């Protein structure tokens, strides 16, 4: 489809939840890192995570010294009362010299474009754009240069979007898997009042309660029983959509199994269809996670670019990724649709 002279080298975009993770990403071969401020302005607003102005300045300096770009996620939706805080975050990021802002809110997009016309803007996955017409909307009006696609499209659908998109396309390659269209999910808000869109958090830890009961270990989210585990069963974090529920007399993972995304085997195809960047999820994880995942994906991307015909994921890569992944199993998510 695409001849080799036009093959695009996809950028490896890694999570930096703190300075140690940033250092791990930079040293293990990330082309770019993404991070957020220590507040609700980004979609990983967790205790002990993220950057203040000072640590962001140092992060940018370290990353740039290694030829690594820094993207700042400001991808929650500000409400009227918080507007000044979000725009101040945009202005602060621009002043510090980030390489791109990752935005979702239409108002913030307009603000960034107007006040910082030179600043590169990426559309966040929280913007829920799944087709080239939507990408054209954000491109024409706000000059976005890249968009992160929600994890709901199949590989062929991604290819279709890339072919007609006016902007570069970034896709998720590895890590936690949202089964819902990102930016469109109020499940956590319904159960806890806290949401990815407004608070930068899904199924937050402060609402989680573990109880040993005669029926087994129970995981509750603000009182709702998300799952119950038999004595030998491994217990996972009670993310709302990954629990077991009763539907029509059956109890099962009614929405999604607690698996995570790994698209390593699709890498040559992702390169062939022309995705501009592959994103690793996990700003809430550890420096060890970032080091391991970045190292494997760096090696894999380089191998796939050098010899796409011969590419197959090395068993040691997969073993290394398995050691750090959440949940016991991996899935190709929507890219290959066994459920379709």
């Amino acid at each position, binding site marked *: 489809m695409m001849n080799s002279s036009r093959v695009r080298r996809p950028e490896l975009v890694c999570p930096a939840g703190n300075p140690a993770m940033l250092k791990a990403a930079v040293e293990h071969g990330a082309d770019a890192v993404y991070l957020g401020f220590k507040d609700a302005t980004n979609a990983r607003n967790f205790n002990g995570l993220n950057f203040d102005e000072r640590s962001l300045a140092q992060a940018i300096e370290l990353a740039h010294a290694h030829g690594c770009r820094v993207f700042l996620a400001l991808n929650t*939706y*500000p*409400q*009227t*009362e918080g*507007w000044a805080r979000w725009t101040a975050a945009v202005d602060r990021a621009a002043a510090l010299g980030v390489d791109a802002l990752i935005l979702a*809110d*239409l*108002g*913030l*997009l307009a*603000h960034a474009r107007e006040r910082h016309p030179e600043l590169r803007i990426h559309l966040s996955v929280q*913007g*829920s*754009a*799944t*087709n*080239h*017409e*939507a990408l*054209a*909307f*954000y491109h024409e*009006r706000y000059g976005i240069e890249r968009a992160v696609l929600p994890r*709901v*499209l*199949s590989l062929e*659908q991604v290819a279709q979007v890339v072919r007609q998109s006016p902007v570069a396309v970034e896709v998720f390659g590895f890590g936690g898997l949202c*089964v*819902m*269209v990102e*930016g*469109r*999910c*109020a*499940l956590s*808000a*319904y*159960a806890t009042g806290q949401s990815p*869109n*407004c608070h930068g958090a899904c199924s937050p830890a402060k609402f989680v309660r573990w109880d040993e009961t005669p029926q087994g270990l129970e995981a509750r989210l*603000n009182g*709702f*029983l998300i*799952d*119950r585990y038999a004595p030998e069963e491994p217990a996972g974090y009670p993310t709302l959509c990954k629990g*077991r*529920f*009763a*539907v*029509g007399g*059956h*109890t099962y993972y*009614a*929405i999604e199994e607690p698996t995570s995304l790994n698209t390593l085997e699709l890498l040559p195809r992702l390169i062939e269809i022309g995705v501009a960047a592959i994103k690793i999820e996990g700003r809430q994880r550890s420096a060890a996670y970032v080091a391991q995942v970045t190292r494997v994906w760096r090696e894999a991307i380089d191998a796939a670019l050098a010899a796409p015909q011969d590419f197959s994921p090395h068993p040691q890569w997969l073993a290394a990724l398995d050691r750090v992944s959440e949940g016991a199993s991996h899935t190709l998510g*929507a890219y290959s*649709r*066994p*459920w*379709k």
Partner: protein
Amino acid sequence: MNPLSFELVLAPIPYFWPRGRVLSFYEAIAEAPVDTVVLGETVCARRAELRLPDWIALGRDLAAAGKRVVLAGYALIESESHLKWVRRLVEQDEFAVEANEMGTVRLLAAAGRRDWIAGASLNVYNPHALAQLHEAGARRWLPPPELSRAALAHLLEGFTALEQGTIETELPVWGPLALAHSARCFTARHYRLQKDACEFRCLAHPAGLPLATRDGADFLVLNGVQVLSARPWSLMDRLEEVTPLAQALRLVPAPEGTLERIAALDRARRFGEMPAPEPESCNGFWYGESGFVYRAPSSSPLAAR
């Protein structure tokens, strides 16, 4: 209570009903005191008991019965074939369009339409975002489910202060909350079927598939690729909190009780008769709390004032 003034809007049917049921439902609606009827399939592109020309024909019947008619687009566009459908939706200019994703917005704006409705999934949380959609031609909008009454009031004050023109606000007053949307079909998953060979099992569940926690609490409803709240959202018992903020009130069709709810809302505007409290409903988002929460009218933060 004094009589209230508002436009009564009937939302699209969120469920997959057989064609005959849809047509007889709207035959009854033609006689009911709703002002505006929003038609179309918004949830799943595989649901095709009625196709676009059928919805348009139905729209003409309802318009002849004196209703204002709006055609709604899909909430999720996954492919070029879905986009073709959206282009046809935008090309017809007989009825206004409700946009539920940004590709539809782009096509409406490019066609120069200045009459469209920005659906709740477009994520308008502040006046600046609303101004962007207004500039693109939206003349009515719906807030996302999470937006509280206080946040909505601030947003509308802020929008007025921007002096960008006017836009009408439409607020749902009854219906299960549309909490999440996926490409994956949870109904097909329940039946261990693949989505593309789903045998249209949604047809057997006119109000979706109830999902309960393992200790038996009603929690959610699986509606194909969509997840709804088990408790319906209701502001019917506190309309006096709603009407200062919205010109239009929206009601979601359900297998039971829709005509009764329409009649109750109509009595509220004609005679000021307040619908009875619904303790099995939810209104937490209205007060900035968890969505599932129900506050009785007497415990509304506004009740004491």
